[in-house]
């Protein structure tokens, strides 16, 4: 479990200890060398399409904004929150979608490339599939969130929870589905993936609620996504 004693001013220990701790194994990636070519190619095609849409809606002058946000997601997804006697990583793909819409595709893809480079979680061949697994649910929940975000506080609370919850549930289901497609042998692995993410879904739901409430109060312009274009704060 992540102890607070590990946080130092120089900020050096959190990720290192995370990596050295076997409890902290990250399961939201499908490892390299597992999936057959058909699924890898299929994932890559969808990922490229999604990323192209995301990039087209991202003007050159919005790239600094998107880059800094991508960096903050990368950092935030390394945070462990306590769960029972252990702790879990946050995934936060739902929040990415709620803030960036289609921009979630390029941003998540970049974060995954960086994870591959830094930690070798995932690699090139699975980049497409893993991007789709996380980014597609992100875009989907953003469609659900934006029409409702101006309703009253309790509606926003409920919808935020559901967005956080379902973004992880969909991701786990898609991952499970990818395993299911490999063949019958992997059915249990897929089921395991979905079930093991259940607690994460609840925590992500709760965190999403508080985070959205925070943003609504402090910087509501961050949640205004027009046609997936990331808006300037104005």
């Amino acid at each position, binding site marked *: 479990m992540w102890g607070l004693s590990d946080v130092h*001013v120089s900020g050096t220990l959190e990720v290192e200890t995370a990596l050295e701790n076997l409890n902290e194994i990250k399961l939201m990636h499908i490892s390299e060398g597992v999936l057959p070519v058909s699924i890898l190619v299929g994932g890559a095609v969808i990922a490229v399409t999604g990323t192209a849409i995301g990039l087209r809606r991202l003007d050159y002058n919005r790239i600094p904004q998107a880059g800094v946000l991508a960096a903050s997601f990368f950092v935030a997804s390394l945070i462990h929150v306590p769960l029972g006697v252990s702790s879990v990583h946050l995934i936060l793909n739902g929040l990415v979608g709620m803030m960036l819409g289609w921009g979630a595709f390029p941003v998540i893809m970049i974060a995954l490339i960086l994870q591959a480079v830094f930690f070798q979680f995932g690699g090139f061949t699975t980049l497409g599939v893993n991007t789709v697994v996380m980014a597609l649910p992100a875009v989907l929940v953003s469609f659900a969130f934006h029409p409702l975000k101006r309703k009253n506080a309790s509606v926003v609370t409920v919808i935020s929870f559901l967005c956080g919850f379902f973004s992880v549930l969909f991701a786990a289901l898609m991952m499970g589905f990818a395993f299911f497609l490999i063949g019958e042998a992997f059915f249990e692995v897929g089921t395991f993936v979905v079930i093991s993410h259940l607690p994460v879904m609840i925590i992500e739901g709760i965190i999403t609620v508080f985070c959205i409430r925070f943003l609504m109060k402090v910087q509501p312009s961050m949640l205004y996504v027009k046609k997936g274009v990331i808006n300037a704060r104005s």
Partner: protein
Amino acid sequence: MGNGPLIMDLKDICYAYHGVDDVLSHVNFSLHADERMGLIGGNGSGKSTFLHIIIGILRAHSGEMTIFGERVRTEQDFFRVRQRVGLLFQNSDDQLFSPTVLEDVAFGPLNLGKEPEEACEIARQTLTDLHLSGFEDRVTHTLSGGEKKLVALATILAMQPEILLLDEPTSGLDESTKNRLTEILGSLAISYIIVSHEYEFLISNTDTIYGMKNGILKYHGDSSSLHSHYHSHPAGEVSHQHSDT
């Protein structure tokens, strides 16, 4: 000054970043109850590091620390220290992270195990004491620099610390906020250590002044005798005491 019992005793504290450059070298220091101490020094002299060591967010590489009569070594020890010692960050933006002022001030009391209603009550009371009532529902992020500093101070005071550590509290503040800070500090009945490079502020808010240069801590004198001396050396950031004062 500071005739009360010894509440903090640091012996031979050394600290170095990455184990090389000495930031603190063989620092010996003690603080008594009701003592109000100033620490002056230039940028990078190790002043902030000194405070961070006391509160355990940095760990000394060698030396002994005794706070409130107990040896402090482990994270558990420091957790107890933090219940009684508050640190005001140099940059208030790093200190405030809740959406509203009330939530931020109530955060500390909640961590100390207070019930939500009680924590809110303490937070409101602290804000009133600092003449900040009316700020409860303001968004912390949009406060002005001076307001942020005062709210940050409120978040620490709400935990009713027995020792207060202030890291460059005046940086970026205008005169009127500085005066308010002086007023608040004057009304507190606890010991504190102020780290600053502003001599005048230290003189008017502390009893004793230490200087720090290249990680070495030196006693400079008590504020009342240093005061008259200060103005004749306008360039002197580093105080010094004449033998006959």
